[in-house]
């Protein structure tokens, strides 16, 4: 197994141009990921024609570095300004922003950088060792399994709404209704589109997310613009020490394994992986660990998981030629243009290129860690820029980010509407993250439930006679019940 990796590394090391492209790719990936509204898919699609004339190795060095870098980059803005740069970083805002607010942005960024890098490396190792087996396993996922997986993902809403589960669930249901806007995925009948063509494929996700996170944050900063000059105290540039690193290492490894597995299931990507890992880390919290207030494990879990999903997503892509998400769809295009046909034969007939892909992903994740750690000093500088300047800049970026996703002014107004909704919810102490989770998973749950009904002629026994489905549904029930118990204990603790 690892001799393959060595061969790949050798072939990568023999070409210095590959190195330069990877560094360029990682840096631009991080930048694009950090900017709200710009996604890795967009960056890769734009770079794809550039790679037409390149050798396969060089083309993948560029595309894969951008992919890995962008998933990590999203956490930087999540930590610094509470605005996830990519959907995958939405779960990082909980503890990352809280820790930065306590004056320890450097620690938060270092945790996210190390977790992302290690998570990515672990997933590549998994990709090398068990890709074919895992790929076969994911084929067993039919509609009932996807439905159960989506329900489990949705049950995490209960776990992330720590203050008030009822309000969290209400936000989740609201998000599910928002997700139902557009053409019904099964019968192709429009729902709640008010005759607007723009709404036929639903509310676009990126404008919605920019609206829910970036705008309310700007509005809150506006509130206190003239009130007091709170300069965050603390050693922003201090990183984590070795002892802290050791304490989060088990979380990183566990989350990376979960992330790689979820990434390997077609249709489930970094965002679901991050929420699931966060949920798991929180469930296993020790008594003195308070998630949501700046706990290092709360940053490590989602970040390790979302970067691990990159290696996971490559598994069905390379061994089944099935792209699990939009990022791997672009990569599939890249592979085909290079004259490579992914599928079971790729590993045997084109093993040299597969080895290079492994080596490139491994190195890209390591470079990402080094570049990220070196950059923390500059990233935290963003915190010392006065908010009178930060707010207009973030608003400009929000406008351009929501516009450019689909070259649509309509989407900019969508952002503003959700900005207002997000601000009102913030004021009423309703958390907005359930909406993000619901919009991602709602269509998956509904489509697959209805598809399963058709598959089994209306017989609902698929809910209890398929092992994988049962496991996920049981996990979902367990998550909700244990969150309810925790909330009761928490309330009792407060009243005492």
């Amino acid at each position, binding site marked *: 197994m690892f001799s393959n990796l060595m061969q790949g590394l050798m072939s990568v090391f023999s070409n210095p141009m590959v190195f330069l492209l990877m560094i360029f790719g990682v840096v631009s990936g991080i930048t694009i990921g950090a900017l709200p509204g710009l996604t890795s898919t967009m960056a890769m699609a734009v770079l794809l024609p550039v790679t037409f004339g390149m050798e396969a190795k060089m083309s993948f060095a560029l595309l894969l570095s951008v992919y890995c870098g962008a998933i990590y980059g999203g956490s930087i803005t999540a930590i610094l300004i509470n605005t996830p740069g990519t959907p995958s970083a939405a779960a990082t805002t909980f503890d990352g922003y809280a820790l930065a607010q306590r004056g320890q942005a450097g620690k938060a960024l270092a945790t996210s950088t190390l977790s992302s890098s290690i998570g990515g490396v672990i997933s590549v190792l998994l990709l090398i060792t068990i890709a074919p087996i895992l790929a076969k396993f994911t084929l067993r996922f039919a509609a009932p399994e996807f439905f159960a997986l989506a329900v489990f993902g949705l049950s995490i809403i209960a776990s992330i709404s720590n203050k008030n589960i009822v309000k969290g669930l209400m936000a989740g249901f609201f998000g599910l209704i928002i997700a139902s806007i557009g053409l019904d995925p099964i019968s192709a009948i429009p729902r709640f589109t008010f005759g607007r063509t723009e709404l036929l494929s639903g509310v676009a996700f990126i404008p919605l997310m920019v609206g829910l996170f970036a705008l309310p944050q700007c509005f809150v900063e506006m509130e206190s613009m003239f009130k007091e000059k709170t300069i965050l105290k603390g050693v922003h540039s201090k990183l984590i020490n070795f002892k802290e690193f050791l304490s989060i290492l088990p979380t990183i490894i566990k989350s990376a394994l979960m992330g790689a597995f979820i990434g390997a299931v077609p249709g489930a990507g970094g965002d679901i992986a991050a929420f699931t890992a966060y949920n798991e880390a929180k469930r296993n919290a020790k008594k003195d660990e308070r998630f949501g207030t700046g706990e290092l494990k709360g940053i490590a879990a989602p970040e390790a998981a979302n970067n691990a999903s990159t290696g996971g997503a490559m598994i*069905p892509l390379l061994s089944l030629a099935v792209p699990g998400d939009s990022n791997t769809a672009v990569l599939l295009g890249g592979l085909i243009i290079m004259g490579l046909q992914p599928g079971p034969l790729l590993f045997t007939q084109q093993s040299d290129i597969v080895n290079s892909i492994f080596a490139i992903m491994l190195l890209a994740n390591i470079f990402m860690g080094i570049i990220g750690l070196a950059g923390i000093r500059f990233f935290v500088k963003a915190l010392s820029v006065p908010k009178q300047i930060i707010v207009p800049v973030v608003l400009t970026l929000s406008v351009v980010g929501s516009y450019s996703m689909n070259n649509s002014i309509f989407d900019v107004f969508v952002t503003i509407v959700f900005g207002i909704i997000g601000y009102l919810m913030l004021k009423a102490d309703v958390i907005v993250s359930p909406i993000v989770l619901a919009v991602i998973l709602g269509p998956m749950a509904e489509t697959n439930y209805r598809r399963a009904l058709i598959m089994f002629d209306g017989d609902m026994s698929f809910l209890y006679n398929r092992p994988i489905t049962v496991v996920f549904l049981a996990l979902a029930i367990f998550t909700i019940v244990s969150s309810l118990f925790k909330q009761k204990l928490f309330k009792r603790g407060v009243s005492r």
Partner: protein
Amino acid sequence: MRKLLVLFICLALVSVSVFASGAQESAFPERNIQIIVPYAAGGGTDAVARAIAQFAEPHLGQPITIINKTGGGGAVGWAEAAKARPDGYTLTMFAPNIVNLSIMNLSPVGYKEFEPILMFNNDPGTIVVAKKNANLDVVEMLNDDSYKSGGENPNFYLLTIQAQTGVIHQDIPYGGAAERVPAVLGGHVDFAIVNVGEAKGQIDAGELIPLAVMSEKRLDAVPNVPTLKELGIDAQMGSWRGLAAPKGTPKEVIAILEDAFTKAANEQGFKDFMKKAAFNIDFKSSADFWTFMEEQDVATTKMLSK
């Protein structure tokens, strides 16, 4: 006073006509051209658009920008393109939905709101089954309603076949080929109809078996696979892509564009790209493309009215 007014109007008319003829004389194109792609960056239509843009730039002497404007299965991008000034500087990519959506009342604009320029490819539907069903007789399968299909809703490929056989299969709705291929591989459905390019890796590895193609002639990519027509079911349907400009674009401009894009499409580099990506080249000139879409329109309308 009146004379003055007449004089003024005359002057205005003269200046307008001079201006207009001046504008005509200056060679099209003078500035960059936009192609609105109604599907996401990274998809098949987007890939074809970006590739043809790259090869057409030297022939037009102006840069070409790709704008992805997704939504409503293409309706959003086409609505935008139809509204654009008909001056040849805004073009759009066509796909079967330009015909289908307006029949189903899901799009405010149809192909009649555009002037076709050139069609690039037409990938016929290919019936695939999992390895364990390799020995199935395809005609038997299509005539037996106990086999389940996985397809998009509405599944035009299957509807075309059903129009010939009269047998209604249960069709479980799936999204794109990325969902249909694993459904066949995992045995969740018995067969699916995809484009060869979308399943090439699995076909080469023998995991998916192509049983028949829905085209006039056999495909170069899978020469051993018979057409449905050979087997006695005359059902043809494919997924095609082309280029079009908003209605009202001057004839001369269309001619310049058609000429430039035809030259670009015939370059070896573009053909190589299409071959690598397993797109089945089927160039159709502006006039032929129009006739082709009219035929599609009639056939689909008939199919959906049943």
